[in-house]
């Protein structure tokens, strides 16, 4: 065998600072002499090509390490290949989040959807409102400082991964209300009952707060997109509050509280748009007829997902699918096959509608996940989603994928990432922590 002495890397365009939804990740990799060649348009394509190159190298009894003569032309089927981690229901350390980013890069995923806060805790340490985490986090060790956030964003950038942060509202905000008086006071029998509902759209102070908060978020997170959530708003508390009821009358909303939700979101998206950012939202925003910017990305999470995708794309919005990739629903056996079979373009629609689907996200909600199990529960199951989002539309046979996924899991173990077995009895040449 000849020694492969060099991999020549040619990138056509100057280096970009951060990846975007429009980044070109294509590359060509050629190994056919003692000089290999990796060519790409952008740095992001070169990073994907280097990952592929690392997969092609294998241990060989005679040669130590070997690579076969190979030519690869490659590009992603979808531009947005995301993974959501929820760090509110359980805290996940920066070290573990980095390990997850590394696992994402190993499967060419390119968006970390950082679901950083929710009802249960507010671990984001705000510059403008430090008390939000001061009272809203589980405790003061369970927070992400500004340095932590910057460190994580840089770690992701090095791997061509975008960090899209989610600050979900007006619901899912109980932890915000422990310090800042922005939530609706719920009433029972005409009196406040010391419970709180979604953010209170009837008070101007709510939007004054949101302007300051999202101005900070726009500065801290460099990606063009912020995720504004907007899902699962419960109207009961709004209904009980006399000030909100009076505001409903004043605005002519009658008893239709979805119009109040629409009013809140319309104000919020206008605030965020004024910072120059774009936004991603859960599908309810569109369901409730909020007018959003043309570059808005709408994330579908409800079933039946083919109908939901058809409806959202018919309205002309760029769309993500996550419905069938809730990895936190853990079951015994080869559940990755169902993730592998789910296709974001499997819905009745025109070619133009299908082109509006820009990708999807695997989601790992945090009720039963923390640093003890997040990596092994997520990986390599999320890799099934990664292949669906990267590879050609006709790469659909789970039987053909099984041995490669098995090899990929072993690759994770060799690289120090504790990816769980997903295909029944097996072994890896290099076991974890052996």
């Amino acid at each position, binding site marked *: 065998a*000849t020694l492969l002495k060099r991999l020549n890397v040619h990138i056509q*365009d100057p280096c970009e600072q951060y990846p975007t939804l429009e980044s070109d990740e294509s590359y060509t990799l050629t190994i056919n002499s003692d000089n290999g060649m990796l060519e790409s348009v952008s740095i992001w394509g*070169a990073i994907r090509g280097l990952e592929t190159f690392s997969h*092609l190298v294998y241990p060989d009894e005679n040669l*130590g390490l070997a*690579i076969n003569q190979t030519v690869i032309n490659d590009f992603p089927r979808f531009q947005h290949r995301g993974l959501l981690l929820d760090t509110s229901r359980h805290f996940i350390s920066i070290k573990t989040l980095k*390990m997850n980013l*590394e696992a994402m890069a190993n499967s060419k995923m390119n968006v970390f959807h950082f679901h950083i806060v929710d009802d249960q805790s507010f671990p984001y340490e705000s510059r403008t409102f430090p008390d939000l985490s001061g009272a809203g986090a589980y405790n003061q060790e369970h927070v992400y400082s500004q340095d932590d956030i910057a460190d994580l964003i840089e770690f992701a950038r090095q791997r061509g991964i975008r960090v899209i942060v989610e600050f979900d509202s007006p619901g899912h905000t109980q932890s915000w209300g422990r310090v800042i008086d922005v939530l609706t006071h719920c009433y029972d029998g005409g009196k406040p009952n010391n419970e709180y509902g979604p953010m209170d759209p009837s008070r101007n102070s709510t939007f004054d707060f949101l302007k300051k908060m999202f101005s900070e978020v726009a500065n801290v997170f460099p990606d063009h997109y912020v995720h504004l959530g907007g899902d699962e708003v419960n109207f009961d508390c709004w209904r009980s509050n006399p000030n909100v009821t009076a505001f409903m009358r004043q605005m002519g909303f009658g008893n239709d509280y979805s119009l109040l939700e629409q009013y809140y979101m319309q104000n919020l998206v206008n605030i965020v748009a004024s910072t120059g950012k774009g936004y991603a939202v859960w599908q309810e925003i569109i369901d409730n007829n909020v007018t959003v910017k043309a570059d808005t990305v709408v994330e579908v999470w409800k079933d039946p997902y083919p109908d939901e995708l058809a409806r959202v794309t018919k309205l002309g919005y760029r769309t993500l699918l996550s419905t069938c990739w809730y990895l936190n629903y853990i079951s015994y056996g080869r559940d990755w096959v169902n993730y592998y079979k789910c296709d974001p373009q499997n819905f009745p629609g025109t070619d133009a509608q299908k082109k509006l689907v820009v990708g999807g996200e695997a989601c790992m909600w945090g009720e039963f996940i923390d640093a003890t199990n997040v990596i092994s529960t997520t990986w390599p199951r999320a890799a099934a989603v990664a*292949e669906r989002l990267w590879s050609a539309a006709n790469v659909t046979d789970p039987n053909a994928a099984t041995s*490669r996924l098995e090899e990929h899991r072993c690759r994770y173990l060799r690289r120090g990432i504790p990816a769980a077995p997903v295909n029944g009895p097996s072994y890896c040449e290099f076991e974890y922590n052996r």
Partner: protein
Amino acid sequence: PWPQPQSIRTTLQQFALHPAAFHFLVNSTSQTCDLLTSAFDRYYKLIFYPYSYLNYILHPESPNNQVNYKPKKSLDDLRD
């Protein structure tokens, strides 16, 4: 590879790799790119020293993470 590339052609002809006789080389456009040089550093370690790689990237400052594994084959073995 995972995920499956859009197009891949491969043969049984093998090339050997050895950490003492392999490097990445860039064209002039790419030489000023910090992202690329750090990617080379990472992938060199990942390819030749995968077992220490994760500790290296999670604790880059730690003196315990110097790469000092001896390759299974010496370069002379391969030359033979």
